[in-house]
């Protein structure tokens, strides 16, 4: 296996681990907040003037990527021989990364547009563009995950080995 590839992979893994730690912390806080606030809302019915902000579902998609648990049709893993399947996995990961790069870019454009024209008091004192920052952040993060997976499966394919899933070494 090539040295720069290994270096790149380790670098991405470091960032990946940091992101993971951040995500888990944020998720726990969010869940606590969702349960707490909703129950409080029942008790204090009309203290709240409007809905609460829940811009977090994309964060969870990032976790799903990490766990290699996306909904997919996957007939190939049963039909394709292992040697070809290794390369298919590489192709799949980089394709997904490519799509997510485009989505990230579109999301950045969307947030820019919201900052220029959007509602500056959307929810909980935050502007719409601030709430929607979740989209580029999440897609950026998913891209990174797919890249990480792509690099790992590329190394595995070059070495002629199989990998189980992203989480195996995470």
């Amino acid at each position, binding site marked *: 296996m090539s040295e720069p590839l290994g270096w790149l992979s380790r670098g991405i893994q470091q960032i990946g681990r940091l992101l993971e730690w951040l995500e888990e912390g944020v998720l726990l806080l969010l869940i606590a907040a969702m349960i707490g606030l909703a129950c409080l809302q029942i008790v204090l019915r*009309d203290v709240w*003037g409007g809905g609460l902000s829940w811009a977090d579902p994309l964060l969870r998609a990032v976790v799903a990527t990490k766990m290699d648990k996306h909904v997919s049709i996957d007939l190939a893993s049963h039909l394709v021989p292992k040697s070809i399947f290794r390369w298919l996995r590489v192709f799949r990961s980089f394709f997904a990364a490519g799509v997510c790069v485009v989505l990230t870019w579109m999301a950045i454009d969307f947030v820019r547009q919201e900052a220029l024209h959007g509602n500056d008091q959307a929810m909980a004192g935050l502007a719409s563009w601030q709430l929607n920052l979740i989209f580029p952040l999440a897609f950026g993060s998913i891209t990174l995950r797919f890249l990480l997976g792509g690099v790992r499966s590329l190394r595995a394919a070059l070495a002629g080995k199989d990998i189980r899933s992203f989480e195996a070494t995470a």
Partner: protein
Amino acid sequence: PSRAEAAPRYLFKIATLAPDGSVWARHFQEFQNEVIAKSNGEIGFKLYMGGVMGDDRAMYRKMRIGQLQGGGFTMTGISETVPDFRVMAIPFLFRSYAEVDRVAEGLFPLFQKAFQEKDLVLLAMTEVGFVYTMSSEPVTTVAQLRASKCWAPENMGVTPIPLSIPDVLSSLQTGMINTVFNGFYGSIVLQWFTRTKYITDTPFGYAYGGLVFSKSAFAKLPPQHAAMMESAAKKHFAGLLIDTRRSNEEALATLKKNGIQLVSAEKETLQQLLAVRDQKTVPRLVGVAFSKEIYAAATRLLADFRAKSPAGGAAK
């Protein structure tokens, strides 16, 4: 004659929350037919009804990127972008549709300017009509209003229980809320009337909207086409207002037939509410929710009208 086959040079994709077959859709189609005919098919339309393009916010976003060229917006939705458009929604502002028409006519150029500044063109105003307090127990005093468990769309000046529209009916059924605000026609469409037996006969507020195009698309039109479209909008959407008011009247008759009672608010109740509005609500809104200038213009127009026709005071 073969204009139907040729692709229009200026295509306007228009979205609205109003469903297919509604009065809104009917009048828009008349407007569209006239514009297509008078432009010899150079102008074309695609109409997306029933909210398939999303709510007002999504529609505005799609206009920004050019997927849509226009939309029928509600005041609540588009005033996120053009705050001054909110001014006519101040509670208890109008007592009759005559007052509404006079003020709307006077404010229209100011609204148009405010829309222009956001790269939008306001072609016509539309309305839901007067919105009333509807409740399962009579609400005629401030104490009763305060004690009621009410739901209202935002910006109505009452502390509402946060609910999404589909939740309102089920919450009425379970008794989680017992008071809502809606127009006569709206309360039938949304079925809320099945759970509200009383309507307080003073309009709580006025609900309206507008036909809005994006400036970039509108600016591409040759001047004579643009002028033709503006006058066609004026003509057909004036007809829409008449029809909306008629369907509200018919809805009121239907409501009465279904055993719904109109109750009158006590005189001091109204005075108390007006005092709260003028001393607390309005000072908080002016300069924040809408500009001082537009508020001044609205109150001046209303005062002028009332001075000239003291008889036009009673609510419809």
